[in-house]
């Protein structure tokens, strides 16, 4: 990251709107997650690495830039972009949930991993966020699928399916989620 913009450069509601887009748009989530892990990146690199149309890549990078979740780190052509790590905590009457880069990566993975996609259809993003927390424990060895099933109100089979599906996300983000 070239420099961290000051707090006032992070418009909270704009950022929140973009985070909603990230959660609802697996391709956008995939681009964000890619730049966060491998950035800075040029648009042409995103087009070739992620196999997305150039117009979409430009639209998405502008969307992330407007919410201060991405910034241009090289002025000369080709321009390079890097992303900011997200930590957005939502508090409602129903509880508190922090949206982390690992959760965005899990959403991104739903585009290629049908087990995650089915799980989100059945249990929503709150269900996915809860399962991701258990997946961290599962990888650490401090929970098994049976305990996770009882506490998340899933069958043991469904719990094991989603924990295994999220294992690669947890492993990749273990440096940032623990």
């Amino acid at each position: 990251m070239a420099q961290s913009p000051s707090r006032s450069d992070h418009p909270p509601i704009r950022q929140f709107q973009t985070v909603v887009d990230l959660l609802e748009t697996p391709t956008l989530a995939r681009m964000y997650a890619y730049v966060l892990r491998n950035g800075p990146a040029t648009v042409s690199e995103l087009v070739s690495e992620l196999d997305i149309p150039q117009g979409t890549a430009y639209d998405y990078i502008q969307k992330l830039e407007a919410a201060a979740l991405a910034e241009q780190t090289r002025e000369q052509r080709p321009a390079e972009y890097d992303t900011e790590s997200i930590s957005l905590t939502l508090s409602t009457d129903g509880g508190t949930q922090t949206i982390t880069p690992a959760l965005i990566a899990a959403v991104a993975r739903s585009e290629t991993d049908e087990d995650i996609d089915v799980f989100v259809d059945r249990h929503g993003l709150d269900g996915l966020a809860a399962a991701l927390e258990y997946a961290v424990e599962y990888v650490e060895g401090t929970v098994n699928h049976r305990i996770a099933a009882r506490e998340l109100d899933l069958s043991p089979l469904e719990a094991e399916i989603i924990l295994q599906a999220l294992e690669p996300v947890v492993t990749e983000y273990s440096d940032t989620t623990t």
Partner: protein
Amino acid sequence: MTTAYIADTGVFIRCGGPDNEKFQRLRHALREAGVSLILPQRVYEELGGDPAAAEYPSGTLRHAEGFNEGWLTVADKLDYANSTVSTVMDAARRFIATETDREEDRIEKADTALVGLAVQLLDSGQADHIVLLTTDKPAGRAAETLLPKHGFSDQITHRYVSSEFLETITAGDFGDC
């Protein structure tokens, strides 16, 4: 020397789905080695217990083929009247509660069934070594830690069943040690 291979639910989820390469590898390795995996009854119940799981690609399980082809069997019921079995299962319950930072009453018999079956097979003389194939790390560690303390030294091997493990499995993994 007789080695018994106990398999947990996670093995069959890893092998599930339309990409059957891991399933075929496991089946081939077991048939070549002439070995049967043993399922605790609790695991057998888990594998058949949720029709909703069929909505998931990885929920398409093919363990039934193992029964037909002879490389998968279901174990006898756990004999809780056997004091060695019940003592080690109680110890496993406390061990797993500590490992998972849960209250002891939140740990159920399903959580300790793998350890219980390992002890039962060793205590009854049906096996003199156990290989535990599982993704349940707390239960695996309980087995590795507790069996030696109850008279079964060097008689348990815990294998975490990762994707990589199944992608490279061969009959050699089932050779008697």
